[in-house]
C-alpha cells in the first residue's frame, strides 16, 4: 500500500499508523454516565467490505492526520484528504 500524503507525496504504508474508522460519531451527551450509545460507540463496528474512510497518522513523515478512503477488500487507496 502506498498513501499519497498531501504534504510529502506518495509514501509507503510503513510510514503510517492506522488508527480508526473516520465515520464513527461520538455521542454528544458528554459521557457522564454509561449509555447504550456509548457502549455502541466504543465497542460496535460496521466492519463491512468495500470502501471506507479511516484516519491514518503520518508518524514517519510530517505527522499529519489524514482521512484516507480505502477499499478494504482490495487495499486500493481511493482518496486522501486532510481532516
Amino acid at each position: 500500500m502506498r498513501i499519497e500524503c498531501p504534504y510529502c507525496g506518495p509514501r509507503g504504508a510503513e510510514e503510517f499508523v492506522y488508527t480508526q474508522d473516520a465515520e464513527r460519531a461520538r455521542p454528544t451527551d458528554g459521557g457522564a454516565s454509561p449509555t447504550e450509545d456509548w457502549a455502541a460507540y466504543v465497542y460496535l463496528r460496521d466492519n463491512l467490505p468495500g470502501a471506507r474512510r479511516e484516519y491514518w497518522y503520518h508518524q514517519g513523515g510530517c505527522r499529519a492526520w489524514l482521512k484516507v478512503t480505502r477499499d478494504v477488500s482490495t487495499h486500493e487507496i481511493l482518496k486522501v484528504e486532510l481532516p
Partner: protein
Amino acid sequence: MRYSALTVLTQALKGHTGWMPAWRKASPAPAYDVIIIGGGGTGLATAYYLAKNFAVGRVAVLEKSWVGSGNIGRNTTIVRSNYLLPENVAFYELSLKLWEGLERDLNYNAMVSQRGVFNIYHSDAQRDAYARRGNAMRLHGVDAALLDREQLRREIPFLDYETARFPVLGALVQRRGGTVRHDAVAWGYARAADRLGVDIIENCEVTGFMFENGAVCGVETTRGTMKAGKVALCVAGASSVLAAKAGLRLPIETHVMQAFVTEGLKPLIDNVITFGAGHFYISQSDKGGLVFGGDIDGYNSYAQRGNLPVVEDVCEGGMALMPMIGRLRLLRSWGGVMDMSMDGSPIIDATPVGRLFLNAGWCYGGFKAVPGAGFCCAHLLATGAPHEAAAGYRLGRFAEGRVIDEKGVGAQPNLH
C-alpha cells in the same frame, strides 16, 4: 470405512482401489433442526460435537467454498493453553485436552505433536510477567515451567544468546503445547461429523436469513432456501458481514494476518518457539519447512493478503532470535482475514436475534481453539446455556464492562 493399520495393509494389497470419499457430497434438504454456517474448523467441530454429544435431530454445515478453504487451512498450526486470565485458561485447557484425545476420537490422523511451546523472555520485567503467567496456569492445573538461561540453552542451543539488544534470559515452557496438521483437522472433523449423519454442503453461500416473529427461521443460500430450528454463525473473518444480514452490529473488526513457510530443511527446530521482544513464532512442519508468523498488519482488511512492512518486521524478529535462518529462502507467504474482537477474546453466545447463535471473534488464535469452540458451541446450541468453560465469552460483556483483555490494550483491535 474405519481407518487402521489393517485397512492400510488391506488397501495396499488391493492396489488402493477401495478407498472411499471421506465424506458424502450432501445435497440441501428443505429443513434442518440446526444449520451451522461455515465449514471451517470451528463450524465442523461444532457439528461433530453436536451430533456426538446431543440428540438435536438433523444438522447441516453450509460452506460457501470447499471444506477447509478458510483460516483452518491458512494458520501456523500451534496449539497451547498458556493464558493468564481465568476465563481463557479454563477454555483453552479444555481445548488442549480435546486435542490430546482428538485422533482416537475422530479415527483420523491429525498429526497432533506435543513438542512444547517455549516463550522466550528477554528482560527481568518480562521474566516476572512470564512467572506470573506460569503460576496462573499452574493454579488452574495447566502445566508450565520457567526455565533460566542455562536450562534453555541445553534444550535450544541455537538461539542468539549473546546479543546485547535482546538478550535471551530464559523461557516459559508449556510442554503439552505443540502443533497439529491443520488441514487434517478440517478433514477429520468433516469425516467424523458426516459419519454421524451431518450434511456437509459445500459451494453453498448464505445470502440472507428468513425471519418469523423476529426470530431466524431459516437461511437463503445460493442453493435454495432451507428452514432451520437454530442457526449458528461460525464464519470468523466474515462474521460482521453475515451478522449485518440479520441486522446486528458486532464488537469485531476484520484484519489480515500473514504467515510464511521456508523451503524444506532437515529436522532443525523441534519445538514451537516465540520471540518475546518482538512478535515472531516459529515451528517446523513435518515436511521440513519452517512455518512462522508475527503481528497482524494493523488495519482493517478483507483481502486475504498483507503488505511488505509486516513481512520485513516478521523476518527481523526471526533474525534477532535465531540468525541461523538468515540464508533460508521463503517458499510461500499468505494472509488470512480474522475476526479481531474488541478485547482480544472470542464470543460464543446467543444473539439478540432469536434462534441465531454466534461463534466468532477468534482473533489470530482460533486454530488452537477449534475443538473447544466446537464443544462449547454445541453445548450452547443444544442446551441453550453456555458451557461453563466458555461462560465468560458472552456477547453482552462489552457493554457490561466485563471484558477479557489479556493484553490490556482496550477496544483497539489492531493492538491485540
